[in-house]
């Protein structure tokens, strides 16, 4: 039976360029002389280093422990010696450095004692913790910790588990080759996840330009004999491999920005993630290697199985970088990012390493004014009006940009791909988003400064009051003792109490006056800097009030 397919609006059809890197099977890349394993390779908290310099590590040994639940562990990809725990260049467009464990392989590749984990018997929470500590994160590129997504949510069950084998970006073929070679592991991983999500069915979505992968998975599904597994071939149209777009195509469900897809009865994982889940739970192998497509301006485009932490230059050397390469890109040509240098390591997010040349990806022509032709709106898979977002982002009108759903933009690049004015539209959205995040951080900082200031005032007041009360109590005690001594006779209670009361009241009045003076002094004259900060915070709050909460970032 053919399942009914749905469609998303927009999208583009660039030349897939997937032929060159799929001619040869996946090759296992040798270990480099040095592995740079970044601690932070996923969305969420940065793991704590668990090893020190000089320590010997084994393959699969945890070297970074998850920092809280929204985090994931990292492991040594081979056995060797830790030669540094320090900041190293990261595969990030800005060229930032971040803490990494630097390992010198000893060539023995000795494995740590594999933990036998009976996931059938374990509770779902225990399985999730195990996957977190096995470092399993989304391998489609978003590197979101998988254990967080393996939760059926409020309803306690899910309808559909979507396996994403669409791989819509041109040049990238790592999932294609993985599906051809490991179809059974992928599907068995999916069945594990299906059980964890209490899902009714598993739909594997594959674009129709990968017939070999679809055939391999269909054969594997038939061999497993599980009727809840279905391999669905979807039309090739970028970005059909976007999680939300694929969910839409396979189920007709549109998951809005900022909501959990499990609330809509569906969850989506990349096929490589599924295999990683299977390998972690059934084989005790944490996530220490991944398939990386090396393509573009190289002599021998191919897919390699690469140890996480392998320097990018080492990978390119094996594929033969052509001399006229002008840029290295991590990811595909539509959403990839320019790499700061060949020293940055392969990380869990590295699905593709693309060498660019002026002939392959010509530099953009000069930007012309927007003529509102609407091509971008027709291409946008999120149904946005990209030229309006551009307009407001460019004029720094960020509130309006958010009203036009800036944060629903998935930065797929379709708008810039079709723009006849060659406007780098996505750059404008990235800029607007980062400005809005920066403003929110500033606002939070100003708010805490204001809270600190107000707390200090309150504390000063409280101390003055306490001091005044103490003084009053002391001065009341003195005269009360004096009449008792001079009268000699036992005073009546009234006589003793009345002057005491009067004294206390007088002292209280003094204290009150003093307190008012003090309070006035503190609140009326915050210093200039503090006042400026308060004003700024107020202004920002007023601006922020104009922005609906629903459009705030996740």
């Amino acid at each position, binding site marked *: 039976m053919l399942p009914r397919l749905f469609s*998303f609006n927009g999208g*583009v059809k*660039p030349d897939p360029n997937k032929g060159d890197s799929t001619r040869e099977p996946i090759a296992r890349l040798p270990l480099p002389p040095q592995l740079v394993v970044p601690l932070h390779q996923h969305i969420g908290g940065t793991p704590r280093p668990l090893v020190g310099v000089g320590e010997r590590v084994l393959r699969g040994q945890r070297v970074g422990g998850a920092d809280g639940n929204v985090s994931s562990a990292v492991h040594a990809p081979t056995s060797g010696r830790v030669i540094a725990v320090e900041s190293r260049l990261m595969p990030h*467009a800005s060229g930032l450095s971040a803490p990494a464990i630097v390992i010198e392989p000893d060539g023995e590749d000795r494995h740590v004692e594999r933990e036998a984990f009976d996931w059938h018997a374990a509770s779902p929470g225990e399985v999730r913790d195990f996957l977190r500590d096995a470092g399993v994160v989304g391998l489609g590129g978003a590197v979101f910790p998988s254990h967080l997504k393996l939760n059926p949510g409020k309803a306690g069950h899910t309808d559909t588990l979507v396996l994403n084998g669409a791989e819509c970006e041109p040049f990238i073929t790592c999932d294609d080759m993985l599906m051809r070679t490991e179809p059974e592991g992928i599907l068995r991983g999916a069945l594990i996840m299906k059980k964890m999500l209490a899902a009714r069915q598993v739909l594997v979505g594959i674009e129709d330009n990968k017939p070999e992968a679809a055939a391999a998975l269909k054969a594997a599904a038939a061999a497993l004999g599980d009727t809840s597994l279905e391999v669905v071939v979807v039309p090739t149209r970028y970005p059909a491999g976007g999680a*939300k777009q694929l969910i*839409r195509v396979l189920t007709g469900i*549109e998951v*809005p*920005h900022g*909501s959990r897809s499990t609330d809509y009865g569906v969850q989506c994982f990349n096929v490589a993630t599924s295999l990683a889940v299977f390998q972690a739970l059934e084989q005790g192998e944490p996530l220490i290697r991944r398939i990386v497509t090396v393509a573009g301006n190289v002599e021998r485009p191919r897919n390699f199985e690469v140890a996480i932490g392998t320097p990018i230059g080492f990978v390119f050397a094996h594929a033969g970088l052509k001399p006229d390469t002008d840029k290295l*890109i991590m*990811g595909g*040509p*539509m*959403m*990839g*990012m*320019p790499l700061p240098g060949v020293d940055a390591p392969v990380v869990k997010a590295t699905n593709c390493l693309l060498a660019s040349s002026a002939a392959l*990806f010509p*530099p*953009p*022509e*000069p930007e*012309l*004014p*927007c*003529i*509102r*032709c*609407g*091509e971008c*709106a*027709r291409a946008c*898979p*999120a*149904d*946005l*009006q990209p*030229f*309006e977002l551009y307009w407001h982002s460019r004029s720094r009108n960020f509130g*309006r940009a958010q*009203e*036009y*759903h800036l944060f*629903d933009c998935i*930065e797929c*690049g379709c708008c*810039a*791909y*079709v*723009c*006849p*004015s*060659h406007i*780098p539209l*996505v*750059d404008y959205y*990235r800029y607007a988003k980062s400005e809005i995040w920066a403003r929110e951080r500033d606002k939070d900082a100003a708010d805490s400064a204001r809270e600190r200031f107000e707390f200090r005032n309150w504390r000063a007041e409280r101390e003055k009051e306490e001091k005044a009360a103490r003084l009053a109590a002391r001065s009341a005690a003195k005269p009360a003792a004096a009449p008792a001594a001079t009268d000699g006779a036992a005073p009546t209670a009234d006589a003793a109490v009345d002057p005491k009361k009067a004294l206390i009241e007088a002292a209280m009045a003094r204290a009150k006056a003093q307190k008012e003076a003090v309070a006035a002094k503190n609140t009326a004259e915050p210093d200039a800097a503090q006042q400026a900060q308060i004003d700024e915070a107020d202004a920002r709050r007023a601006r922020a009030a*104009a922005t609906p909460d*629903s459009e705030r970032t996740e």
Partner: protein
Amino acid sequence: MYNSPFLRQKASVRRVMVTVLVAMLPAIAVQVWLFGIGLLLQLAIASAVALACEAGMLALRRRPVARALGDGSALVTAWLIAVCLPPLLPWWMIVLGTAFAIVIGKHLYGGLGQNPFNPAMLAYCVLIVSFPALMSQWPGLHGGDAAAQLHWIAGGERTLDAMTGATPLDALRTGLHGGGEVASVMQSAAVGPAFGHVAGAGWEWVALAWAAGGLLLLAMRIITWHIPVAFLGTLAAIAGLASAIDGAHFAGPAFHLLAGGSMLGAFFIATDPVSGATTPRGKLIFAAGIALIAWLIRSFGAYPDGIAFAVLLMNICVPLIDQKTQPPVFGHKLGKPDGGAK
């Protein structure tokens, strides 16, 4: 250093503009064949003036002249002005109109992409308001030889009846004002021949040629179906309704669709993306509004054809229309639309 996407489609503003120019060729050819070569001279004058004004304004605004001149947008404006003006106007009028469109209509608002009004329609309105008599002198079918046409354009003395005839829209208006009825005016000996089969001898062919060019624009994905369909559909519906109610005083839909600038307006004028609505629903509203206003001006106004005024009036409404017709965003289609209005 630049960022993703690194792949880009082969598309450019110049390609868009050149396609529009090519799509105008059939109608220009038909117009030259039926009404004489005057139009070619007007096209040349308008193009030269538009390019000169564009270059001058770019230089004054300290913008790169060569790159912006090459985008072809000034030529499109120039050609649209030339084809909608009577082809035998004295040369200085088309100079005035084109210069006004480029200098005031386009560059004083910020140049390409920034003008709120359709520059060609601004030029048309400025000229018809300033020189109503000259603007109503269209050549008759095969009116006058080339030498006589060029003599007129060069500013020579004009003998009215020699070459010009009333346009069908004009003739109908005058006839109705004179107490006639639609059918009798169209069959009268004086102006009857001007009406051809349906909407004016020759004009029907010009209109069909514009429609053919418009279909090319649709096929090349330069425009979407929304504006032509909404414009022609609304015009036909209103004209059909009015003529059904009072056939003696209102012309029918076929006449309205093929007369005057209906087809030119539907496919080439109202579809200007810069000054028009951009959302799908907005385009429908925008085009329907133009059709309604144009029909009102044709039927009750002081000018024979109202498309230019209708376009400018709807141009004013575009920001509001666009804001109120934002399409629902992915995932928000079932919920209430929360974008657009502030």
